[in-house]
């Protein structure tokens, strides 16, 4: 082995370990995503297989709704073909139903005779009043064998004949969630639609692909005569078609997994570059010594690159194993909690190769810049005592220029992504832009820290800030590296926080816009009842008067005119600008339905309202979907004498109300006000169901980003540990020159605080921008405005954490070390620690 490489590996120690951990976490994330998507696809595949199983051919007849006789006739004709054993027409139907005592929606189909299903309980439905359901369906409605399911006739609302549950089927079925026999289907109150004809060949030909194709052609001929719109597929073609459907879903999953994987890998790349930068910097004098005793520039370069490659291989191998372990755990959890049939997670060649190659290439590439720097070490650096090390070079122009160009391009792409709603462009742009910022940071950060230090020195008149400012000029590279590590972490966390808050607020505002009032009932007497509900946080009575809406041709419809006060709106509504201007009104959706709609759905309409003892009122009405049927909200200045007793009750629900709680309130309203009284809780329902979804999505995003945050935190601790050794020497010198122990500590922490401040300013700004742009790029279209939300409280916590992270480890270590004593600076007692030339023996000849 290259002796330089060996020495490097030995001296890398915990820092190499941390860098390896960073790449391992990132690789593990990618591998887990790949394996989970693979297992998911296989799950779906086996489901498709399972369902096509038993059928040799499938005739798609759902398009033939015009003539209900045709499919049955076609099935009979197919049955008569020589090679066909059985041809079963499968029908399905939908209707509202009372399921296990709850209202729901029931979709039933005929259970294919040759479909191999597994019953966890009971058996298949045979009689006309029997039904078999999937376990999932049973769980959702709390059904068990023996319970009743009663469909309603959708036209009349009358209850049909009840079905009794006789069996539960395990797993998910493509065909539906409830199955009845053909006789049961005939008894269903709603007309059944033909879906498909499942064809099973005669015993000896079953499963024979050649025979399937021959029969396919025969059926094709039959179809030509009867129903050219129908299509016939062989077993293989069915599975393929279903899998094609699926491919879309898996593609989305892969995109999500790889998008977040790319972020994790990108952050790991930055962390590793940083770590190697630190390693090379801390090895400068060793590298120079190696150069002095005969190592070529190439040997040093190669040693650093080989170190990176080796780290990459080991880190990615560990990452692949970790990823496999995580995926295996998730797969097991999925089987236990969600999907019994979830396919076992298998370590795929693709995942192993992608993980290893990605990790190794990224680590290798990340060590490239530091390797070049290692190669540029001049042997003269070995001869310079540390205390007279020349200032690092000035601002590197090429690096800064590249940084600015990348930054402008990348951040521009992020803006474009936000406007065009393209998340992938956004991720790519953000990475590019951030890279640019990091490159340009070398020009910006030291200057800003120096400026801040000088400013602080001016204000406090202290010596310590001035030393910090001088340090910024002396070691701008080290300063930038440390700040960059913080910057990565801060940007990531702020992006996440602001993105979550912005998404939440945008959806809230969108909801408030459509549904300003959570629930309303056309009765003034429910206040006490609803106030007793936990989910209701406030209610108000809105005065009103029964009236009639009169159209131009004289037709009349009952209406209730109400007018809310500004106080009511302030108390109950989720936005303030909901009250109509004088001469204008809000109309419930019911005015747009029925025989005589007031206008096209959603358009502005002019309506005339009449009531006994009042002047007719003509208003410009706009549709408001959140109002109970028949409600007209007018301005309070309309001039009518509205009475509270004739009014409505408007309610506000708590922000955390669940769908169940809302339904319970709805039940209370029906009980108290009567089923005939118009009421709506649609707004509250929508809010409750959406907030559940948002919470889930945010949680998923958080989990997906967690890998990146872990990597970033590793990077911060890694980089912060760096300077401690260097600082000891520096601190020893300053102590020797008369700075107090406390002074040294203040120096270290002041510098750390200034770095953290710069990282917070830049990272905070970028994070807010990325968070907003991320949400904007994720919303599908311009359907809703994205309202930027900056959660100052949480950002404050992040700032505190960053400050603590930046200042505590070095300060702590210096404190533990006891602070430098000037004695340590004497050349005799610890030559490698510090060489002070000024203390040398005087010259004598």
């Amino acid at each position, binding site marked *: 082995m290259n*002796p*330089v490489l*060996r*020495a*490097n590996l*030995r*001296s890398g120690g915990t820092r190499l370990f941390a860098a390896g951990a960073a790449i391992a976490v990132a690789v593990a994330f990618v591998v887990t995503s790949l394996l989970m998507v693979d297992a998911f696809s296989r799950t779906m595949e086996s489901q498709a297989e399972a369902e096509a199983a038993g059928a040799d051919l499938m005739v798609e007849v759902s398009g033939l709704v015009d003539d209900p006789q045709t499919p049955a006739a076609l099935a009979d004709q197919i049955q008569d073909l020589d090679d066909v054993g059985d041809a079963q027409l499968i029908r399905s139907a939908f209707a509202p139903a009372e399921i296990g005592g709850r209202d729901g929606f029931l979709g039933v189909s005929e259970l294919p005779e040759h479909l191999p299903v597994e019953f966890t309980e009971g058996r298949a439905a045979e009689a006309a009043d029997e039904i078999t359901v999937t376990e999932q369906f049973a769980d959702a409605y709390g059904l068990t064998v023996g319970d009743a399911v009663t469909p309603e006739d959708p036209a009349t609302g009358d209850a049909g004949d009840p079905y009794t549950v006789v069996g539960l089927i395990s797993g998910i079925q493509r065909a539906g969630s409830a199955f009845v026999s053909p006789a049961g289907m005939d008894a269903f109150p709603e007309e059944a639609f033909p879906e498909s004809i499942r064809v099973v060949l005669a015993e000896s030909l079953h499963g024979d692909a050649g025979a399937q194709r021959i029969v396919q052609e025969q059926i094709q001929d039959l179809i030509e005569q009867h129903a050219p719109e129908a299509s016939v597929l062989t077993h293989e073609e069915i599975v393929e078609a279903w899998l094609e459907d699926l491919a879309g879903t898996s593609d989305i999953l892969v995109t999500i997994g790889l998008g977040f994987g790319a972020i994790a890998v990108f952050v790991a790349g930055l962390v590793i570059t940083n770590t190697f930068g630190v390693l090379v910097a801390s090895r400068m*004098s*060793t590298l120079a*010594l*190696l*150069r*002095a*005793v*005969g*190592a*070529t*520039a*190439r*040997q040093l370069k190669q040693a650093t690159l080989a170190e990176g490659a080796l780290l990459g291989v080991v880190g990615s191998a560990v990452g692949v194993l970790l990823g496999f372990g995580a995926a295996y755990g998730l797969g097991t959890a999925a089987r236990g909690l969600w999907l019994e049939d979830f396919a076992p997670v298998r370590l795929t060649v693709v995942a192993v190769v992608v993980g290893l190659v990605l990790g190794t290439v990224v680590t290798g590439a990340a060590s490239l810049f530091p390797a070049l720097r290692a190669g540029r070490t001049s*042997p*003269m650096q*070995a*001869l310079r005592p540390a205390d007279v090390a020349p200032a690092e070079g000035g601002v590197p122009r090429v690096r800064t220029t590249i940084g600015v160009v990348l930054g402008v391009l990348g951040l521009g792409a992020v803006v474009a992504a936000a406007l065009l709603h393209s998340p992938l462009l956004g991720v790519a742009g953000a990475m590019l832009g951030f890279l640019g910022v990091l490159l340009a940071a070398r020009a910006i950060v030291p200057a800003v820290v120096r400026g801040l230090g000088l400013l602080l020195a001016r204000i406090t008149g202290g010596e310590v800030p001035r030393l910090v400012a001088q340090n910024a000029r002396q070691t701008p590279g080290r300063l930038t590296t440390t700040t960059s590590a913080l910057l990565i972490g801060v940007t990531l966390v702020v992006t996440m926080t602001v993105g979550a808050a912005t998404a939440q607020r945008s959806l809230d505002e969108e909801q408030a816009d459509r549904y300003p009032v959570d629930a309303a009932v056309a009765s003034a007497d429910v206040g006490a009842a609803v106030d007793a509900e936990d989910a209701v946080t406030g209610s108000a009575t809105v005065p009103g008067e029964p009236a009639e809406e009169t159209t131009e041709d004289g037709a009349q419809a009952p209406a209730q005119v109400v007018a809310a006060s500004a106080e009511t709106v302030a108390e109950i509504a989720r936005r303030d600008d909901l009250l109509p201007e004088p001469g204008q009104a809000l109309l419930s959706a019911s005015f747009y339905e029925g025989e005589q709609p007031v206008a096209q759905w959603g358009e502005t309409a002019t309506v005339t309202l009449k009531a006994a003892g009042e002047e007719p009122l003509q208003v410009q009405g706009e549709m408001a979907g959140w109002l109970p049927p028949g409600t007209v909200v007018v301005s309070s200045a309309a001039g009518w004498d509205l009475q509270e007793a004739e009014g409505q009750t408007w309610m506000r629900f708590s922000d955390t109300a669940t769908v169940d709680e809302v339904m319970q309130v709805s039940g209370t309203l029906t009980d108290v006000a009567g089923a005939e009284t118009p009421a709506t809780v649609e707004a509250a329902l929508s809010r409750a169901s959406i907030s559940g979804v948002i919470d889930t999505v945010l949680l998923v995003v958080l989990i997906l980003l967690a890998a990146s945050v872990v990597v970033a935190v590793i990077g911060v601790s890694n980089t912060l540990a760096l300077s401690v050794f260097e600082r000891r020497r520096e601190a020893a010198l300053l102590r020797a020159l008369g700075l107090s122990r406390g002074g040294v500590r203040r120096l270290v922490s002041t510098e750390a605080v200034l770095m953290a401040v710069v990282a917070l300013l830049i990272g905070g700004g970028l994070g807010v921008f990325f968070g907003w742009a991320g949400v904007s790029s994720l919303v599908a279209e311009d359907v809703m405005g994205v309202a930027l939300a900056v959660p100052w409280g949480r950002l404050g916590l992040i700032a505190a954490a960053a400050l603590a992270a930046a200042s505590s480890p070095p300060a702590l270590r210096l404190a533990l070390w006891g602070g430098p004593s000037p004695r340590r600076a004497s*050349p*005799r007692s610890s*030559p*490698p620690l510090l*060489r002070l030339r000024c203390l*040398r*023996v005087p*010259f*004598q*000849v």
Partner: protein
Amino acid sequence: MLRCGLTWGDRTVDPMTHTSAVAVKATDLIKTYGTGDAAVRPLKRLSLEIPAARFTAVMGPSGSGKSTLMHVLAGLDAPDGGSVIVGDVELTGLDDRRLTRVRRERIGFIFQAYNLVPSMTAQENILLPSRLGRASVDRAFLELVAERLGLTERLHHRPFELSGGQQQRVAVARALVSRPDVIFADEPTGNLDQAAGAEVLDLLRAAVDEFGQTVIMVTHDAGAAARADRTVLLADGRLVDTLEAPPPRSWPPR
């Protein structure tokens, strides 16, 4: 007693017959740091010849350019003018790769401090130049040198486990084992106490007397310079005097 005039690879040097041969020849060396008013000129057309297989001391006031001269002669730094010839190789104009090779094969360097790679054991440090050049290692010679320097027990220790004097001895061993044409030592005893310093001087003396090496040593200590065969005096970037010491004393001096 060890043999004199050991076989140096393909270059056989016999100290008795080559006393007048030139190991290093510098001509009109110029070195400037900085520009304009701030320019410093540590070497001002300095010319110098170092005889082979002899121990030469370099002395002069602080800032007179001694270290700069060492660096330029050893190929660590390039002069702004003039030429350096080590053995039969002209250093001026060599590219970095060739220069590195010359350093590895023909030059040994002992610094005032920080001579050793901290993550390598003493033995690895000693063998570093040959390892870097992928040259075969003469184990017997290594053991001989280690024994002579009293390092046999310490070969597998890391530098932080060694005293300053021991570290300097390892550096000397490294300079000896790679069998360079010339060993440069810049204040090798500067960081050591009297006893340890004397020990290192003994070793350098032995390198010349027993191993037929050429040694050039910068020192501020007249006592140390007294151990050399000749002393070169520098002042303000110029050679001001050369003192031939009394005939070499027998070694060891006790």
